[in-house]
């Protein structure tokens, strides 16, 4: 079952991305007010949702599991690091696609809107996590430091979420659902948006899974190299 998921995840994600591109570029109509630039929105909210909520949530959950003594295991640290690394990709793409949309819609590449700023800060916090991870240290010490930092970075996620309500900036509120859980988008536009959410979620899952597998293999390889070095040293001592 696990192997099936491992093998199927990538092709299914790719198929859904292709479907989203086809629906977004050719099937859905232009927006009444935005025209064709609305097509960027079949990508941007999905990237943002995955980057802000899923990546941050997964990194925080895995980090909490690492810090909790009963569940502490190296795999949680590797999973958190993988989620952050892929999260940086999604958050950066969120900012780039938002900027590309903002230029024709708002007339500027960047504006000091609360949601834009807090998303950029979350991206920088994640980059800081990666910087901390690259500092040479004992693997357990590094894992604990990074777990704490991931939890601290997660504090920014609610700020990003509520920023549009607290600060009333330029950025729109919820894209798909209103506060009363009524759909704000309809027809083929709605289906394309929902499909893009699913597609980006699967792409995220596939990327995290691959990164996690690489991290696990790196750790195993380090272990083997350490064992070999120790054996060599012991042999030297005997001879």
């Amino acid at each position: 079952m696990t192997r099936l998921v491992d093998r199927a995840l990538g092709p299914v994600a790719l198929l859904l991305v292709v479907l989203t591109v086809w629906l977004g570029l050719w099937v859905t109509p232009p927006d009444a007010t935005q025209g064709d630039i609305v097509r960027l929105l079949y990508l941007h909210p999905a990237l943002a949702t995955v980057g802000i909520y899923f990546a941050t949530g997964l990194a925080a959950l895995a980090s909490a599991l690492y810090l909790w003594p009963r569940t502490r295991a190296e795999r949680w640290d590797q999973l958190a690091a993988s989620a952050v690394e892929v999260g940086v990709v999604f958050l950066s793409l969120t900012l780039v696609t938002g900027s590309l949309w903002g230029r024709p819609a708002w007339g500027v590449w960047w504006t000091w809107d609360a949601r834009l700023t807090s998303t950029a800060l979350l991206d920088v916090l994640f980059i800081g996590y990666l910087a901390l991870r690259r500092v040479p240290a004992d693997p357990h010490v590094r894992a604990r430091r990074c777990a704490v930092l991931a939890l601290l970075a997660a504090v920014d996620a609610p700020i990003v979420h509520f920023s549009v309500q607290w600060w009333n900036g330029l950025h729109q509120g919820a894209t798909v659902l209103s506060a009363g859980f009524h759909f704000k988008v309809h027809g083929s536009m709605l289906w394309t948006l929902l499909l893009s959410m699913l597609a980006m979620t699967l792409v995220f899952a596939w990327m995290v899974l691959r990164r996690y597998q690489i991290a696990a293999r790196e750790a195993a390889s380090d272990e083997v190299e350490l064992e070999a070095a120790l054996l060599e040293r012991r042999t030297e001592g005997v001879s």
Partner: protein
Amino acid sequence: MWRDAVLVAGKDLRIELRSRVLLWQVVPFGVLALVLFALALGPSEAVLRRGAPGLFWLALLLASVLAASRSAGIESDEGTRGTVRLLGLDAGGIFLGKAAALALELCVLGAVLELGLLVLFHVDAARLAASVPLAALAVVALAAVGTLYGALVSGTGVSSTLLPVLVLPALAPVLIAGERGTAAVLAGGGPGRWAVVLAVMAVVYGAVGVVLYGPLEETA
């Protein structure tokens, strides 16, 4: 936990009183930053007055990174952590004590910088005095975040370069809320929801610090 916090705060403040790092290095740096900002803005009184809240908070933020680095540095001296561990002090208490000492130091720094605003930026003295409670709230948030991140990078060997990279994005909400709240008070209004934002940040980071300082202590 509270008794340990008082002990640690007393220890940090005694070290500060003897070493005078705050007086000779952190405060002059903050004042220097304020002077340089004023130079960059030019001599126009209106421009200086309009930029005063933002520049005050920026100077306080930058100087607080130095203060946080110094506070964490006290613990990273050879054998200090081991000795503290042997004393059996509560990790949450250590965090609260260090944060309290840092908050007190930042209050001194903030007071000096507010004097700088009066002299260099020509702000109204009565309105500036009315912004002090907001600044005090922000200082608590700054101290909690600074203590936590200081412990995070302590012992990495690259803490002086890594700390600003990690802590400044985390402190950005304090900068925004502090600047907006101070600007509102200096304009004759109240701090409004910005005081709430700062209070929430102080409580959240304080609580997170009490919980997470323990695991960080174990890494040192």
